[in-house]
């Protein structure tokens, strides 16, 4: 049974063990893609396939945002014709896709990652450089999804320097 976790709850009561950073994959040029290589730190926490699927979906979204084609040219030319004033009232295609990505990440966090004590950070908050995955310590049995009962150390969410990398 997947419980939908309150992510704030997770951050407050569990303690941050470490963070993993999925780097960018530049083999296709400068477009925004992330490496699908499975980091060893996640080995015991999440199935490889689930992780790869998430990253591949994200890559697909970014490819859609940066797609060069008829519609992007149209947007570019229209914007140029209005001396770019149209951006004061209209959202660009890229921004729309970024919103979709943010909703997707939240959904993934709620359904898949939080129950496993993990938290994905939207790459846009890290300058599109990395996908940051925070790994929280699993106090109880590894399979279950309980947030660790509050011990004194409390939370250290992304703001504090977590225990470096192991």
């Amino acid at each position, binding site marked *: 049974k997947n419980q939908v976790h309150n992510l704030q709850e997770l951050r407050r009561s569990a303690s941050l063990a470490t*963070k*993993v*950073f999925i*780097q*960018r994959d*530049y*083999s*296709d*040029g*400068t477009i925004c893609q992330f490496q699908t290589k499975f980091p060893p730190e996640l080995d015991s926490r999440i199935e490889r396939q689930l992780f790869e699927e998430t990253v591949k979906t994200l890559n697909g979204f970014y490819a859609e*945002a*940066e*797609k*060069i084609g008829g519609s*992007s*040219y149209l*947007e*570019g*030319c229209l*914007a*140029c014709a209005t*001396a*770019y*004033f149209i951006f004061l009232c209209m959202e*660009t*295609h*890229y*921004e729309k896709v*970024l919103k979709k990505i943010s909703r997707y990440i939240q959904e993934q966090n709620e359904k898949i990652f939080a129950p496993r004590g993990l938290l994905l950070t939207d790459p*846009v*908050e*890290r*300058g*599109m*450089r*990395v996908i*940051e995955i925070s790994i929280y310590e699993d106090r109880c049995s590894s399979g279950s999804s309980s947030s660790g009962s509050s011990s004194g150390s409390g939370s250290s969410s*992304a*703001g504090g*320097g*977590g225990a*470096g*990398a192991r």
Partner: protein
Amino acid sequence: MSVMVVRKKVTRKWEKLPGRNTFCCDGRVMMARQKGIFYLTLFLILGTCTLFFAFECRYLAVQLSPAIPVFAAMLFLFSMATLLRTSFSDPGVIPRALPDEAAFIEMEIEATNGAVPQGQRPPPRIKNFQINNQIVKLKYCYTCKIFRPPRASHCSICDNCVERFDHHCPWVGNCVGKRNYRYFYLFILSLSLLTIYVFAFNIVYVALKSLKIGFLETLKETPGTVLEVLICFFTLWSVVGLTGFHTFLVALNQTTNEDIKGSWTGKNRIQNPYSHGNIVKNCCEVLCGPLPPSVLDRRGILPLEESGSRPPSTQETSSSLLPHSPVPTEQLNSNEMPEDTSTPEEMPPPEPPEPPQEAAEAEK
């Protein structure tokens, strides 16, 4: 009885951003620190066009056609709009790595370099990547603590890594990079057209009026004409040349930085992997491609730490036009030789004003 309204000061992220940028309008506007030459650019354009509209246009509209000032106005407005867009927008600054991320990368680097035998100098921090079947090196930026994406470069004037870094332009008071290159190009293009237009019609005006009242009388009546012609003449040589140079770059999908460093030219160098091989495609991508939004999040609100309420003051969070300088940043590590390519606009194509820095940078 007056009510004391205590306003909490909201700290926005732009106030704490590292780098040597100036922010205005509560983070909406972002420029380099030195803005003197930008004000000069504004003054020259506004001044020349004001003189043109005030004097020559009135005569020419009557004598020739009212369309003349209309076109001039359109060109003027377009070039001002693109200038302000270039100057005020985020060129594509890559935010610096947070401490966790920096530590993670350092660890990775140590792990990779661990294989270096004793007694040898530790290798420079470079990662090799393959793009479209060609090897491209990624350099590590000591200031920003990241591996720079391909085509990104660190601007020493603004102290930021900028994506698809072209050059730092003092005339627009900002770096030119991925997000504002098209505005910059359209600005110099429209400015070239405007300059040619004003120059041409000044000549026409002088010619027409001289026929009636003589050359010297014409100059005495509208002395501004001489000024306009002079400004346009010098601007022509520089801006039109620059436009030609950038048209060449756009057609080949190159940046000024790459052109100056000769990244893709020369016998043993690789070909530009970013070019589509087709001029039209390159132009379309550079000028009409999708526009990535800024990842700096200047107007995001920082979590309140200690800044609680302040004594009431008027207009604190409303947009103020006074530039706020962010907190000064750390010094550049001497190992990092940042590219400094400010383009002098006097000669086309632009020559780098500081060759020694370029040479020393080399391929570390």
